[in-house]
């Protein structure tokens, strides 16, 4: 019994030693070592990014339609409150000198000012009226009272009158931004979970030596595409099941479908685009992973590659997430045009912009890149993998991947 156990330990040691030396002397181990750097970078980036995105979303601007002397007092009051409470605690104020404090219809000014306004303070400092979307008015009612009391030197409590409107440009922008972020998060999570699996997709063929039978019978591109689409099909089935269960669960818990903020293109088109952009994100990243994975000859090599590949995915996702609040800015255009981040950036656009044609162009652009990546992967595969003899297998993984 003991002898058998010791023999098992000895054999395990032999295997462990072989695997250990094989890994640490491989080029791919370098990437493995770099792996922990990625979460560090991503953690730092995510901290700053999340803060920036939240600030961008929550930056409320309140219009001031008060007599000039009262408006100035209010601005001074804000300045003194900011010193003690901080910039983010008090909303930004925008003077509206052309708006009469007595105008009963403040809604028309909410979206017509130089910036979309969250709400407008009108009437007088003693009896301020706050007009805006219900959610915004309730949020800023207390701060408006504080501002007015400070402006009046805190002589007596100020009662703020409220005036709710259906929706404002600012509140609409925020809800669409939330939808954009939600859409991105869904795409990101699904792609992260599913695309990485493609890495090991050709290993079975190679370990079972079926690849040559396939390569002689059908074009290599077809093998790659077929594998990609099979995996996409599998992913879509998974998504259908997960979303169905999620829908049933949410409906059961909240006794009805929650009233979600609508995206700019409307829910039906947004849902279709979500599926299409997931498919494109999957195909783009999947084709890259398949190409990289095809260079690996063993499961061990695939495992070693999987972490840097996942981290690469995260970097792409953060680029898209960062650009979500930068609509039309160079960084957002870069995210739209860079093939790997394009689907994520475009779903954010679908939530915030109502023109449809751009999605057709983006999908064609992404499909084109998928084909280019597949072509390139096939070229590398034919050049570096389909050789006879041991020399092909002895070539280091790094040289196989880079084609060096």
């Amino acid at each position, binding site marked *: 019994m003991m002898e058998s156990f010791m023999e098992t330990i000895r054999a395990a040691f032999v295997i462990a030693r072989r695997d250990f030396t094989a890994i640490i002397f491989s080029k791919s181990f370098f990437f493995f070592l770099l792996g922990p750097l990625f979460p560090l970078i991503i953690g730092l980036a995510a901290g700053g990014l999340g803060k920036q995105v939240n600030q961008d979303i929550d930056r409320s601007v309140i219009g001031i339609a008060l007599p000039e002397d009262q408006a100035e007092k209010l601005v001074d009051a804000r300045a003194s409150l900011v010193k003690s409470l901080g910039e983010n605690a008090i909303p930004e104020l925008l003077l509206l000198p052309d708006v009469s404090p007595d105008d009963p219809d403040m809604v028309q000014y909410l979206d017509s000012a130089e910036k979309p306004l969250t709400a407008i303070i009108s009437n007088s400092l003693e009896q301020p009226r706050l007009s805006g979307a219900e959610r915004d008015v309730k949020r800023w009612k207390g701060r408006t009272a504080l501002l007015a009391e400070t402006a009046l030197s805190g002589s007596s409590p100020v009662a703020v009158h409220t005036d709710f409107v259906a929706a404002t440009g600012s509140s609409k922008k925020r809800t669409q931004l939330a939808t954009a972020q939600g859409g991105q998060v869904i795409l990101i999570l699904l792609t992260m979970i599913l695309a990485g699996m493609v890495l090991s997709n050709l290993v*079975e*063929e190679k370990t*079972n*030596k*079926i*690849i*040559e*039978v*396939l*390569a*002689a*019978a*059908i*074009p290599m591109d077809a093998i790659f595409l077929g594998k990609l689409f099979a995996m996409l099909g599998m992913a879509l089935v998974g998504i259908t099941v997960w979303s169905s269960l999620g829908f049933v669960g949410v409906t059961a818990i909240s006794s009805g479908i929650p009233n979600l903020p609508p995206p700019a293109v409307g829910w039906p088109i947004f849902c279709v685009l979500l599926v299409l952009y997931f498919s494109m994100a999957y195909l783009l990243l999947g084709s890259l992973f398949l190409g990289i994975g095809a260079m690996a000859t063993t499961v061990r090599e695939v495992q070693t590659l999987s972490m840097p590949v996942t981290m690469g995915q995260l970097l792409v996702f953060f680029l898209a997430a960062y650009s979500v609040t930068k609509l039309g800015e160079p960084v957002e255009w870069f995210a739209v045009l860079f093939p790997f981040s394009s689907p994520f950036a475009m779903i954010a656009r679908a939530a915030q912009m109502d023109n449809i044609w751009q999605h057709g162009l983006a999908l064609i652009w992404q499909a084109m890149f998928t084909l280019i990546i597949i072509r390139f992967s096939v070229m590398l595969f*034919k050049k570096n993998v*389909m*050789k*006879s*003899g041991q*020399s*092909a297998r002895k*070539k280091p993984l790094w040289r196989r991947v880079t084609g060096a």
Partner: protein
Amino acid sequence: MSAVNTENAIEARNIVKRFDGETAVDGIDLDIKKGSIFGILGPNGAGKTTTLRMLLGIIDPDEGERTLLGSLDPISKAHQVGYLPEERGLYQSMKAYDAIAFMGALRGLPLNEGRARGKQMMEDHGLGDAIDKQIRALSKGMAQTVQLLGTIVHDPDLIILDEPFSGLDALNQGKLERLIRGQADKGVTVIFSTHVIAHAERLCEEIAIVAHGKIPFMGKVSTARDRLRPQVHLETRELDGPWRSAIPADCRPLGHNWHFTLPQTGVEPLLEALIQGKAGIESLSIERPGLHDAFVHIAGEAVAKKMDEDAARDSVGEAA
């Protein structure tokens, strides 16, 4: 490439393949007639598999061109081709008849028809009990047979087999030889590579000998044999006499046995000289060299030539 000869299943002109700067195939020309059994012979590492892969379109040549069934794009003719690679492989979890059907389906055969044919072929080849078994449950020989059946299930016009006899026992080698002959009888072109000369000698009408990525010989088996003079095995009672001038001067006896290459003058003058010179012939046999001897001779010459070329290149390099 000049006009394609429609009588040929395969044509190759000066095809070259290099891997990492090393030349694996170095300017090969091939003409393989339709309906023939053609053998590609060569030692291990000679470039046989790389040549076959280029002919099939699995990899592209760096230089030169090849046509397969008249097409410059071999993969486009895949439906008419069956290929058994040297490294056999099947999906382990597939059932045997399904594996045959899958290979047929890759080459355009409807899956259901492939399944029906697969079952029938397995019955015909004595594998009826294994039809429903997973590949992982089959013996190596059985799995190899299944893959071979998958190679021909779609009734191809051209079958290419890379080292088909390796790993098979004598019984299965015989079965495979019969299968190859059977396909050729139906008009199918069969090309196979091997380093076991006996199979080629029994099956092939024409052969190509590959050595160091070149083809030092291509033609009929008999022509290859004719490259070597017949060998004389002679046993005499006498060890010396005037008859000695009839045999090569450097030939030394092993006891009373003499082995030498038949002189250019032929059999009759030799026989006459032995009788008139009173050699006392106990036994005399003249053997025509086999393909094996021809192969060793031709491949050996190619190896020697290559070594000379390398040495010359090295000396030029050193001088420079």
